[in-house]
């Protein structure tokens, strides 16, 4: 029998109980739309967090002394780069490199007299484009000048939590590489806001020269932070700069833990996908089972006319496929609208997430269009719909004609 006629019957059958078909269609559409929005938000947040980390912290490539450990913020000379300026010049000479700058990191405590807070001190070349996000994020006061010797920049979160304003004087304490505590008094020259609360809560900037002098590191740097024109060139640039006494790390290597964590988190989203799809499957199965029970006599008539079990089964599967495809089409439209809204307006989360995890997550989650993922969700929704229809279709097909006709 022509498939088109089976499809015609299946399509028209959907119109018999329009309200039920419509509700089922809405369930499929909303299920898919929900998954699209959630996956769009996850993809957007992952990408934004990664880019925030690269932009504010790691850069695309870092050059460090082989013994320097990322998490320890060591100030011991053996862990620092001695020839930092020369390495930065060499990095900048590569065509793939957009900017390269030495940075000295130190852990410390900021005191206001009444209160104190743990901070991470960044000694930076204030003229370098590597720190452009800070320059552009200034919300009060001024950015550092190259010859600034007693000024610092702090984040807005830190300023707000300690009640500090531009011009205020604060104490900074660090422990030098040989274990001696060092104290200094600095004036707050400016306050910045990067949009990443975790960063604005702990970062303190000063000039590289001052930081080196303050921490007794004698012209050494923790790392050369390199920004590239294209992040895909990271491996190539790292390989060309890696050498005797210089370790090179790509953004992917430096953020391995974050990337692995996100991969693990995706497992939870798969569970959510399964739950949503299971709900859709139950609704589809229920709709089709009701349709089978209502039309049991017709199955007998069709069987009497010579329709085989597999053709009756195909008719119900086509009915499910029609419902599924229509639902998926509407779901894609609704989901795309939802993702578009979340891409533009985002979902405000404040600083809860970053405070909890220390990740470079902004104050809002923004969605991204992720066509391969959305196509996969649509495909699996259709598969689940068809799988859910298998039992009702099989049930219809296995009816003995005489039993089905007995209802006549």
């Amino acid at each position, binding site marked *: 029998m022509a498939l088109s006629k089976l499809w*015609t019957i299946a399509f028209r059958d959907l119109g018999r109980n329009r309200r039920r078909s419509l509700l089922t269609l809405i369930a499929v559409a909303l299920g898919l739309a929900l998954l699209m929005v959630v996956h769009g938000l996850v993809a957007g947040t992952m990408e934004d967090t990664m880019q925030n980390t690269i932009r504010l912290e790691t850069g695309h490539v870092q050059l460090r002394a082989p013994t320097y450990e990322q998490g320890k913020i060591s100030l011991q000379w053996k862990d620092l780069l001695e020839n930092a300026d020369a390495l930065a010049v060499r990095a900048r000479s590569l065509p793939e490199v957009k900017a390269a700058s030495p940075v000295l990191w130190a852990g410390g405590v900021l005191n206001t007299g009444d209160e104190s807070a743990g901070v991470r001190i960044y000694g930076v070349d204030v003229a370098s484009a590597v720190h452009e996000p800070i320059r552009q994020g200034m919300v009060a006061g001024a950015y550092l000048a190259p010859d600034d010797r007693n000024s610092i920049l702090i984040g807005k979160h830190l300023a707000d939590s300690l009640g500090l304003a531009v011009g205020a004087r604060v104490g900074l304490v660090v422990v030098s590489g040989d274990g001696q505590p060092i104290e200094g008094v600095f004036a707050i020259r400016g306050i910045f806001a990067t949009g990443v609360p975790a960063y604005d809560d702990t970062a303190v900037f000063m000039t590289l020269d001052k930081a080196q002098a303050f921490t007794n590191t004698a012209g050494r740097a923790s790392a050369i932070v390199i920004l590239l024109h294209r992040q895909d060139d990271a491996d190539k640039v790292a390989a060309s700069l890696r050498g005797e006494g210089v370790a090179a790390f790509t953004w992917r290597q430096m953020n391995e833990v974050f990337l692995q964590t996100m991969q693990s988190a995706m497992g939870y989203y798969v569970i959510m996908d399964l739950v949503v799809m299971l709900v859709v499957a139950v609704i589809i199965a229920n709709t089709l089972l009701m349709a089978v029970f209502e039309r049991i006599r017709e199955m007998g*008539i069709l*069987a009497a006319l010579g*329709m*085989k079990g597999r053709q009756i089964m195909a008719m119900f599967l086509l009915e499910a496929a029609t419902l599924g495809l229509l639902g998926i089409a509407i779901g894609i439209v609704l989901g795309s609208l939802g993702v578009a809204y979340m891409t533009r307006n985002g979902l405000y989360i404040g600083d809860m997430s970053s405070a909890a995890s220390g990740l470079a997550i902004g104050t809002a989650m923004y969605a991204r269009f992720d066509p391969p993922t959305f196509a996969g969700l649509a495909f699996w929704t259709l598969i689940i719909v068809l799988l859910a229809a298998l039992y009702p279709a099989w049930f219809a097909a296995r009816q*003995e004609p005489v039993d089905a006709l007995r209802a006549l």
Partner: protein
Amino acid sequence: MTIIQLENVIKTYRVGAVATRALNGITLDFQAGEFTALVGPSGSGKTTLLQIIGCLDRPDSGAVRINGQDVTRLNANQRADLRREKIGFIFQFFALVPVLNAYENVELPLLLSGVPAAERRQRVLALLESVGLSDRLHHRPDQMSGGEQQRVAIARALAPRPLLVLADEPTANLDTANGRQAMEIMKKLNEQTGTAFIFATHDPRVMAFARRVVKLQDGRVVDDGNGQRI
């Protein structure tokens, strides 16, 4: 020519522990082109006999041969093929597919048989004309009267040019005029096409159309002969 042979056919239905013998050793032959009524009171086995002849059900024992082929050994798909090619059905409640219009309902068995489109169209139009429904081609069942629906069902039963048409109480839900019209159409088509008709009924007006009447009681044939005599 004998088209149907039944030999000592027995069929028993069981509901829980209660067994009811619907057919109790039926032996009958039907010839090509016959117009036969199966009559008898409710529970006499008329519908069961039609279902067994129509390969919708299988007997517990005995032989059922259609054109010499024993159909009791066929599997579900083979029986579906046989029904599609050789047997037309008319039911008491018209039994049209509600989402298809008159044209599509008559076309359905031809689609199942793979009849080419041009021939399909010609046969469907001719049949609907012969049952007087040329002006109702695009009406769905719920837009037609009971009499019209039954005429569509008659056209559908004859569409594949079957060996025989089985009709179960075809006039039971029709008024006198529509019942008579349906019977006249079946009689006319029987004469024109040579297709055998076997219909179950307990309506004396319907019996009057039959050339042969087989009377059943308690699952047995108690009389078999000329319609006028019975």
